[in-house]
């Protein structure tokens, strides 16, 4: 860490001066002369020269009117240069030891704390397993996943006499195992009861399913679990696997033998070690933090070396009958020599369904193949046509009609034979609608195709809207009449062709009809909420209704006019046109106008609270204002509404409002100010308070 220290004022100048003075030998100066900046004799130092330092001499409170507090250099760690300037000093006798800088040199306390915090190894999730407490010492893998807490099972077992690192079960009378290699006293009586040896629960790795991809070779993989497992076999002590792996099956040719870069040093003696594994084995143990592995028997191990663990070969031969818990297998059981592949799930064939079995839960009844009819067949056999189906479904009939509705059956058959299309609709031979039966009138029949389609409901609604409210084409009444005619036609009230002005070409007429249809869609009345939100424009309607002779357009219901407005229109000014309502001027306003506020103004209104709305005043403090008003009425013997207002009185004297008689009702007298008009206090009171000051002033003058 580095701090900015105030630069010590160099004493060199003063010293030099002193030395220089002494040089000639004229004067002798003793001691160090105080520099003019450093004299601390209580003389005046301007504020801007004063500095505040902490106990270590670092300057604090700089800048921003000396209120700026900073630590370090602009609230950063370090100095202006970014590090602590330091001279490198190294001599033969005193070598510089701090040659290398560590990151910690540049960390402040916070960073250090953070770094220390990040160093702790934690499991993401605490895993609790019963009976596995304390086994982390000799279990490389499972130690990771075991919590340090005691599980309930451990607690219960401990209450029942179980201790850690003991096996569960009845105590065994046996000789004591001495692990330090000293001689076991054979003559000692086996009088001691020992807890049975702790034996591992067979770990059935259910979750681990070694599914490997195509072309996967575990040998070629770096740091595989398998290799490690085998490497750590003595530690893991999984005799269950061991026996099988140990099996008399012929060994594979060790790939390491032929690989490059694998020397004798790397050969740890393990048969299946992956030669391409990264780094020495030590690295594994380092991360987990367990103790150093027990020394493994190497190829070069002496025969006399003591085995602290069950060796593979010994196990293979001697432990013929000993199962994983160190006991003989039960009678009639033979320890398995083949590996039981518990990790891979066996796939069993699905059960055979007995012939003739029929599920009682079969869903859909079996359809009879003979009775099956395709939809097309059904449709073919149906006698309904499109109109009949539409009527069955409740649809409104389409206005357009097919040619086949009108041509006779024979004509249709002829068409079918001519075209070869048998799917033509049935010829109904219907008669043409009235008005166009005559073949001579081919023109209107063709014109009908120009009449656009409009929903009957829409047409009726648009028509109704025109009757009650607004209707388009107010500027062209003839056009409006045509519009109404079109709507009537589509609403079903009329059947004849919409009228066409003589001068209008058919194309324009068709265009206009299209426009009508569009307008009817647009101007159909709104419904529901929308309808309640809008009202017809009265102005345009008045224009339309005044000069339109159409009976459909009624005059709108005039809004009920205010009687006061009516009276004003008639010129009956006076009580009819006059009304009044109370409002509450703000106190500040009354003060500015120099008037007494009306008695019902709430007293608590802050004078300069800003925007006063009279409405808000009215709602506020109703009870109080009502009380005041009632009191006022009682006191002035009359209702305020009947009172003649103050401004009606012609003379200025009477213009002062009828002030309430001074009773318990709090009044403010504008004309007199008690504080000003009150008798002045005796002179000696002032003297007692201000006398000294006055005297001083006199003395000064």
């Amino acid at each position, binding site marked *: 860490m580095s701090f900015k220290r105030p630069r010590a004022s160099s004493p060199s100048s003063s010293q030099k001066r002193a030395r220089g003075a002494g040089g000639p030998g004229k004067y002798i100066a003793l001691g160090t002369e105080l520099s003019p900046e450093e004299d601390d004799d209580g003389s005046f130092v301007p504020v801007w020269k004063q500095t505040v330092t902490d106990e270590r001499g670092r300057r604090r409170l700089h800048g921003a009117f000396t209120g700026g507090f900073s630590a370090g250099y602009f609230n950063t760690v370090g100095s202006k240069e970014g590090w602590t300037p330091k001279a490198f000093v190294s001599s033969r006798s005193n070598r510089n030891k701090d040659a290398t800088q560590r990151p910690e040199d540049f960390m402040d306390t916070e960073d250090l704390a953070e770094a220390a915090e990040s160093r702790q190894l934690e499991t993401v999730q605490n895993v609790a397993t019963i009976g596995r407490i304390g086994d982390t010492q000799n279990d490389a893998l499972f130690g990771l996943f075991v919590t340090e807490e005691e599980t309930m099972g451990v607690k219960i077992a401990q209450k029942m006499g179980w201790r850690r690192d003991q096996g569960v079960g009845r105590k065994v009378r046996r000789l004591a195992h001495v692990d330090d290699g000293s001689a076991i006293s054979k003559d000692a009586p086996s009088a001691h009861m020992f807890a049975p040896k702790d034996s591992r629960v067979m770990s059935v790795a259910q979750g681990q399913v070694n599914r490997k991809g195509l072309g996967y070779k575990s040998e070629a993989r770096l740091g595989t679990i398998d290799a490690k497992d085998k490497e750590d076999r003595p530690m893991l002590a999984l005799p269950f696997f061991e026996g099988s792996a140990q099996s008399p099956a012929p060994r594979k040719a060790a790939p390491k033998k032929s690989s490059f870069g694998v020397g004798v040093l790397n050969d740890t003696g393990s048969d299946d070690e992956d030669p391409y594994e990264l780094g020495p084995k030590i690295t594994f143990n380092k991360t987990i933090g367990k103790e150093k592995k027990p020394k493994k028997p190497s190829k070069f191990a002496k025969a006399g070396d003591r085995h602290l663990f069950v060796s593979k070969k010994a196990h293979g031969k001697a432990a013929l009958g000993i199962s994983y818990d160190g006991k003989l297998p039960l009678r009639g059981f033979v320890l398995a020599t083949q590996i039981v592949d518990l990790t891979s799930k066996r796939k069993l064939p699905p059960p055979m369904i007995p012939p003739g079995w029929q599920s009682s839960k079969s869903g859909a009844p079996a359809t009879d193949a003979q009775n099956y009819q395709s939809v097309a067949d059904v449709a073919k056999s149906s006698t309904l046509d499109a109109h009949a189906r539409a009527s069955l479904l409740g649809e409104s009939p389409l206005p357009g009609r097919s040619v086949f509705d009108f041509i006779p059956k024979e004509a249709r058959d002829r068409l079918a034979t001519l075209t070869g299309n048998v799917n033509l609709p049935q010829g109904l031979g219907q008669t043409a609608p009235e008005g166009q039966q005559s073949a001579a009138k081919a023109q209107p029949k063709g014109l009908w195709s120009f009449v656009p389609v409009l929903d009957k409901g829409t047409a009726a609604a648009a028509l109704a809207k025109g009757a009650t409210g607004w209707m388009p084409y107010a500027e062209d009444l003839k056009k409006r009449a045509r519009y109404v005619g079109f709507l009537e036609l589509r609403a079903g009230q009329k059947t004849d062709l919409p009228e066409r002005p003589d001068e209008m070409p058919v194309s324009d007429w068709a265009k206009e009809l299209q426009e009508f249809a569009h307008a009817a869609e647009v101007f159909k009345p709104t419904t529901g909420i929308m309808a309640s939100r809008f009202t017809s424009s009265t102005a345009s309607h008045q224009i339309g209704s005044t000069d339109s002779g159409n009976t459909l357009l009624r005059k709108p219901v005039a809004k009920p006019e*205010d009687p*006061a*407005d009516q*009276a*004003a*229109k008639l*010129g009956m*000014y*006076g*009580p009819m*046109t*006059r*009304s*009044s*309502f*109370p*409002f*509450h*001027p*703000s106190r*500040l*306003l*009354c003060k*500015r*106008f*120099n*008037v*007494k*506020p*009306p*008695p*019902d*103004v709430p007293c608590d209104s802050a004078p*300069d609270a*800003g*925007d*006063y*709305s*009279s*409405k808000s005043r009215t709602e506020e403090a109703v009870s109080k204002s009502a009380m005041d008003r009632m009191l006022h009425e009682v006191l002035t013997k009359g209702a*305020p509404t009947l009172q003649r*207002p*103050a*401004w*009606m009185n*012609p003379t200025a004297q009477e*213009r002062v*409002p009828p002030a309430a008689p001074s009773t318990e009702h709090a009044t403010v007298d504008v004309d007199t100010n008690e504080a000003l008009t009150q008798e002045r206090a005796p002179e000696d009171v002032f003297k007692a308070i201000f006398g000294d000051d006055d005297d001083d002033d006199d003395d000064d003058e």
Partner: protein
Amino acid sequence: MPPFPTKPIAKLTGHNGIVHAVAYSAGSSSYILTGSADRTIRLYNPQKAPPSSVVPSSSAAYPPGLINKYSAHGYEVLSIDVNEANDRFVSTGGDKSVFFWDVQTAQTIRRWTGHAGRVNRGVFGGDGDSVVVSASFDGTVRIWDVKSNSYKPIMTLDEAKDSVSDVAVFDAEIIAGSVDGRVRSYDLRMGMCQVDVIGRPVTSVSVSKKGTELLVSSLDSTVRLMDRTNGQLLKAYRDDAFVNTDLRVRSTLGLNDSVVVSGSDDGMVFAWDLLEGDCLHKFKHSEMREVRGKGVGGKEAKGKKDVVSAVAFCKSRKEWASAGGDGNVVVWGMDG
């Protein structure tokens, strides 16, 4: 019946737009402040502006009689009111704010913003002109405190249903005329508001000296004198030639409340006898002459700009001023 000043004695030129506001200075009433649609306020000395004065050709030169220009408005100026001490005035206009000016320095002392629409009128009020009452297109009357630095109004009166076109202060009453056809008199002493229905949009409100009558202009070509005590109509002033149906035209009382003067939509100025109600004089503002008989109006060549939108009566002399659409203000005085 005292004689009516009919002779143009001064012509104040220089404005480039319709003059919407004209106000005499307080005290001796020797100066005239005009506010125009050209966004400027001008202070004139009418004695130095003869009726023959013309606008100088160069825009930099001051027209005769012009003393000072006050330019801070960004929109048209609609009203001007001078305080009693004659050192401050208030102006309002289309920029939704009320400007409080210092006459000497030609700087605004305060600008009150808060109205949501153009401010039609701003007048001084209260004891020692300690408040400014402004009436706005947003339908509110706001009262601003001159004495404090608050940027909020002391009070807002928002009962009007439409634009408040004019406001007047008499004693402790605030009288506001609105386009909704009503005149509301807020009595601060009583805490009551009297609503008088006029029926047609009110464009101008002015109170008589006694405070018992109220002159109301409305858009039915009628100026009415209302009795403030009971709301009755004392007199209605009409004339065949008097047209006021579209524009805001001010009316005023003059000659010690004996005549009623009003501008009109078509550039005419009308003077009625207060008591009798008959039209005494008609003036053609743009031609600076009195018109006699019926042959008036019809001169639409001037276009829509020919309107007399403001008239002001001098309180101390027999003199009045009319402000017209041609950008000129004509001061009318006695013959002698």
